[in-house]
């Protein structure tokens, strides 16, 4: 359970977040949407402990400020928007970095296989021996997600649910992998863990969010179930863009929505 009350964050004299209340429950996928500069990443980073804040944040019932980095690392894993690597690690080595961090929660003998399993989950099973720097942006993002998964492999450890913080996890991915990755996140939540994700794609947000927060100018403009949040008025107010919810475009204009994926079909993966 992540609870944040009255969060205000200033960086360099500018107020980025103001009086934000935020709750993310285990077993649910909580998605944050909003225009650029609305403070989404700042909110996420604040919940991760990166920024100084006014207000109260509780992670798993404990005050965020009281957690040491290793304690925090065993409660949550963070996927940043982008990662540059300064030295030539192989893909597997990058993923294995997640093992050293928190507590994956598996038996030590299982450790050796975790990187491979994580890579399989993100559809990069054959990539273990490649150099990270040679991969495309989308592939690198998936490697990072595999690392993040390794860190909190078991979603609920000793009764404590763990969280995935995902900052735009699918921005560089093709549509198939977008759905695949969001499925990974959803499965993590279904197993008892919690997911907090920043998404730009409103359709994906609508598909996967159990709880949706819309931010604008550092404040929460709306929160709740997607159906309740995504209304014409709100979308126009928050995004400054006159879009209609649930309205098909003109007859000759094709549209392909992720929600149109066959209900029973999931993208074929090579998961063992």
């Amino acid at each position, binding site marked *: 359970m992540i609870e944040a009350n009255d969060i205000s964050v200033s960086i360099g004299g500018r107020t980025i977040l103001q009086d934000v209340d935020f709750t993310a429950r285990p077993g649910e996928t909580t998605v944050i949407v909003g225009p650029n500069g609305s403070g989404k990443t700042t909110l996420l980073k604040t919940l991760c402990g990166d920024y100084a804040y006014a207000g109260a944040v509780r992670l798993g019932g404990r005050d965020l400020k009281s957690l040491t980095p*290793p304690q925090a690392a065993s409660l949550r894993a963070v996927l940043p928007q982008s990662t540059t690597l300064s030295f*030539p690690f*192989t893909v597997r080595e990058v993923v294995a*970095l997640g093992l*050293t961090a*928190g507590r994956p929660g598996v038996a030590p003998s299982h450790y*050796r296989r975790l990187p491979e399993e994580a890579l399989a989950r993100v559809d990069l099973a054959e990539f*273990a021996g490649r150099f990270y720097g040679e991969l495309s942006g989308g592939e690198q993002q998936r490697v990072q997600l595999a690392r993040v998964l390794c860190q909190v492999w078991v979603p609920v450890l000793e009764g404590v649910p763990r969280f995935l913080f995902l900052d735009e996890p699918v921005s560089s991915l093709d549509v198939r992998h977008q759905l695949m990755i969001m499925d990974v996140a959803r499965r993590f939540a279904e197993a008892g863990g919690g997911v907090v994700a920043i998404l730009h794609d409103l359709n994906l947000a609508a598909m996967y969010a159990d709880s949706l927060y819309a931010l604008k100018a550092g404040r929460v403009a709306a929160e709740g179930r997607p159906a309740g949040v995504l209304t014409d008025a709100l979308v126009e107010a928050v995004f400054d863009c006159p879009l209609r919810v649930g309205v098909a475009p003109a007859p000759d204009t094709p549209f392909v929505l992720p929600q149109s994926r066959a209900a029973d079909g999931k993208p074929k993966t090579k998961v063992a």
Partner: protein
Amino acid sequence: MAQASLSGTAHPAPARPAGDRSGIGQTAVVVLAGLLLAVMVLSMTTGASGASAWPVVAHALGLAPLEGADALRDQVVILNIRLPRMILGTLIGAALAVSGLVMQGLFRNPLADPGLVGVSSGAGLGAVAIIVVGTTILAPVTAFLGIYALQIASFAGGLVTTFVLYRVATRSGQTAIATMLLAGIAIGALCGAVTGVLVYMADDNQLRDLTFWGLGSLSGANWTKVLASGPIILAALVGSAFLSRGLNAMTLGEATAAHLGISVQPFKRWAIVLVAAATGASVAVSGGIGFVGIVVPHVLRLVIGPDHRYLLPASALLGAAFLLMADAVSRTVVAPAELPIGIVTAFVGGPFFLWILLRRRGGLAW
């Protein structure tokens, strides 16, 4: 090694999963340890005087009496010249290589070297000050510090500049590495200017001394220096072993390292302290020996990958072996005179490094 999977059937796990280079890392550490041992023996058995090591060692261990006209001379050569020199060379080589590695991890840049924390400019300034004005302006200081004034001033200078740099770069408990880099340039320039003034004031003899100091040498090694610098270097080396997890995490950036459970600010502080101590103590007794800190970690990274759990011990071993070999060359090639060791490390290391780069061009993936 067979492991049961969740479904109960046994999968033989591959010898090493693809992308896992820990096997190479472990092999490298073992091989380098063997190499170091061999070079240590070589170091004890070569020298201009032709003294034989084993009889002296046997005598020291109480195994056999030592006889012969050259007995005293050989004893001094082996126990008071070669042995402290070998120990110092091992420690300093390891210290320089590990410091270079830690700096590269801290600055997340393969070109970083220990000098970036200011320790080299400060140590150099301390040494130059003693050499040039040690008998005039600084005479009371020199008198107080005795014949090791040069070493003490050098070490102190290195620590002072590192401390200043750290304070400049640290605000509200956060050390900005980029600021440290820039401040290092500024302070380096300042130290250089003061050094320049002192060099201008120097007379002929002093200029020669400065040149030799700058080129580095293990020639003055004795037990006093071993006892003075040794424990500091050893402590720093042991301490650095605990940095490997943090260094690995830091390659993803400081924010991600924190998310991975690293206490980043204490980590940075410890890394800087260890590098300053190891490098300062080394430079103080051997003068400026360049090259080891950049090349050794690089070569190893190209061969065994950037996992610091193996890179750290391997760097220490290879740095020590490399310096000992360079030292053996420096004291035999123009015997009975000696070449400053900095010349040898550059001469040998430079072309070798170029060769490695040419061969592995394809492997550089960053």
